[in-house]
């Protein structure tokens, strides 16, 4: 699957995550994350985003995410919706 356009999903409210996906001209999966729990869970959140991207078979994507303490189910949901909107 290919990311064709910029798409967004989520909010800046607590327990949510705001995700922007866009085509990556350099290729590969690039994740830029900002989180209120960066120190404790930054790596885990990036891993969840990466796994969700891979489950769609996407090889080239740029993701910018601003996390407000979202649980895994919210991270997966927001990334999935943003990707589907960008296809």
């Amino acid at each position, binding site marked *: 699957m290919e990311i064709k356009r910029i798409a967004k999903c*989520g909010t800046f409210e607590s327990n949510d995550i705001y995700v922007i996906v866009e085509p990556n001209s350099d290729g590969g999966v690039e994740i830029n994350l900002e989180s209120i729990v960066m120190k404790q869970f930054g790596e885990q959140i990036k891993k969840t985003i990466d796994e969700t991207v891979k489950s769609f078979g996407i090889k080239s994507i740029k993701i910018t995410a601003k996390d407000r303490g979202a*649980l*895994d189910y919210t991270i997966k949901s927001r990334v999935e919706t943003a990707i589907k909107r960008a296809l």
Partner: protein
Amino acid sequence: MKLRRSMLFIPGNNPGMIQNAGVLGADSIILDLEDAVAVTEKDSARILVRNAIKTLDFYNSEIVVRINPLSTDFGFEDIKEIAKVKPHALLIPKATEEDIKACDDILKRIEEYERFENNHIKLFPLIETAYGLENVYNIIKASDRVEGVLLGAEDLTADLGIKRTREGEEIFYARCKVASACRAFRVDAIDTPFTDLNDYDGFVEDIKKAKSIGMTGKAAINPRQIDTIHDVFAPSKEEIEYAKRVMKAQEDAKREGKGVFSLDGKMVDAPIIQRADTILEKAKLSGLL
């Protein structure tokens, strides 16, 4: 008997509220994909609710999802996405007999494909149009999946072109009609929510009125309404004591070979025994026995 005194609406696109819903103590949680979600966010709410049901623990609350009306582009998409994660039930807005049959058909196919047991996913028609109200009997009869009916008075009164009031006299007929049809099929009759959160006395009166007509539960739009709903729908101490005495008197009469007997000078027959039995069962489920 499943205790369904309170059904709490939770907006389907709010992760914080969804993940905390299970600790609020409602008998049922309604994850709302309809009115609480903006048209531009229907897709994100549907995915969020699907993943929430798959992942989160809602403890003792049953999970019901209010889908969008089948007359919109979103209704069938909601069913296809949500049924896969096996919610307890779907709430069908502006329900008609045709809608319930259509839902039944599509759920049958999904259950077969996913290898769920037949009729696992139940239905709650939302009666909120004059057409739906006048057809409520046939709507319940349209599928074995129907476990209860929810009366939506805001949309109903809008459809009737009448004003919604604090006293609710304008929905007396609707409450009676829904309660009676539900009782005919032994399914739950869930009353419309009370929307003024600052009017506690009006809220209590409203629940009592609904209960006295035969509604068996009430929808809630705020967690702080749950305890009050449970208190009003719980059998009173006097009702429980009387029910116990009826059951005891029945045992005594049986031993003595009597068919009909009297208690406190009043004849006790089958309907009174049945009511006493229901009260004791409700009391047990409510933790009062």
